């Protein structure tokens, strides 16, 4: 094997016929930017943790993807994010769940791993810890994007009780029926 970094930006109903050339170019550019950011860390002799964090930060900051800025909305119109990281050398791990104010949740997950005795923190406690650990805190409005807001409105209109998966429709169980990338 010759690979040093692999990334993903979500899976689902992603068909060429539904993609404009401009949009595809944007996705490819974002993925390339993330790969280059992680690869630069590896080339500098930094750890694989630094590499995955750098790559994920790029994707979190890009509203095309359902993480960080561009996260999808909950039923209540909020952005609630989750993240985790794991060190293959030590089997140490860190995670945050249901956070709403941490600009880059993966940074908070790493802080949980390296600066606490715990593996997972959730909600307001995770946000308070992240702030103390030096993670950047933002107003929840930072995560707002119009496309995701429209996605929620569409989901509410279709069936206010059902959660919608990332970017899928007409799946095998027939529960989720959307034709856009929702996350």
């Amino acid at each position, binding site marked *: 094997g010759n690979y040093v970094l*692999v990334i993903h930006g*979500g899976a689902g109903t992603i068909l060429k016929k539904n993609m404009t050339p401009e949009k595809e170019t944007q996705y490819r550019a974002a993925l390339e930017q993330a790969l280059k950011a992680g690869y630069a860390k590896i080339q500098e002799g930094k*750890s694989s943790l630094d590499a*995955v964090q750098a790559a994920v930060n790029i994707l979190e900051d890009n509203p095309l993807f359902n993480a960080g800025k561009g996260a999808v909305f909950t039923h209540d119109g909020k952005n609630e*994010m989750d993240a985790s*990281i794991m060190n293959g050398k030590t089997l140490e791990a860190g995670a945050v769940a249901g956070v709403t104010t941490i600009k880059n949740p993966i940074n908070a997950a790493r802080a949980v791993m390296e600066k606490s005795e715990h593996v997972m923190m959730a909600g307001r406690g995770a946000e308070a810890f992240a702030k103390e650990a030096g993670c950047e805190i933002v107003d929840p409005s930072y995560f707002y994007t119009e496309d995701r807001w429209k996605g929620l409105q569409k989901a509410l209109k279709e069936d206010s009780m059902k959660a919608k998966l*990332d970017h899928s429709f007409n799946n095998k169980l027939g529960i989720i029926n959307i034709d856009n990338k929702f996350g």
Partner: protein
Amino acid sequence: TVGAVALDKSGNLAAATSTGGMTNKKYGRIGDSPIIGAGTYANNNTVAVSGTGWGEFFIRTVVGYDVSALMEYKKDPVSKAAQTVIDKVGKLGGDGGLIALDKDGNMAMPFNTEGMYRGAITKDGKIEIYIYK
């Protein structure tokens, strides 16, 4: 959901996953992304894994750890282990995909959906990016 797995010059693996969850979710629902062993897993003896898809199914199939276990106990190569696990998810009715990178620099990016935004880079900087099947 986004994720990354990496192998550094010291031979150490790491995995990371970050997500906004599901549109219209209620009641503080949490998916697989922050669950170690489900959405994210890394072990220097085997593989680093990050998943994306229908979280409930990824939790129930313990996706990340299952890929590692198949490699550790059954000596499956990463490509076979990763595909086996995605097939398990599919059989339950879940959809999505994962990325996996083993300790020797072999990778796999299986998915059972129409597409998955994905990419990889080699030791010498060669970039591969794919979106569709």
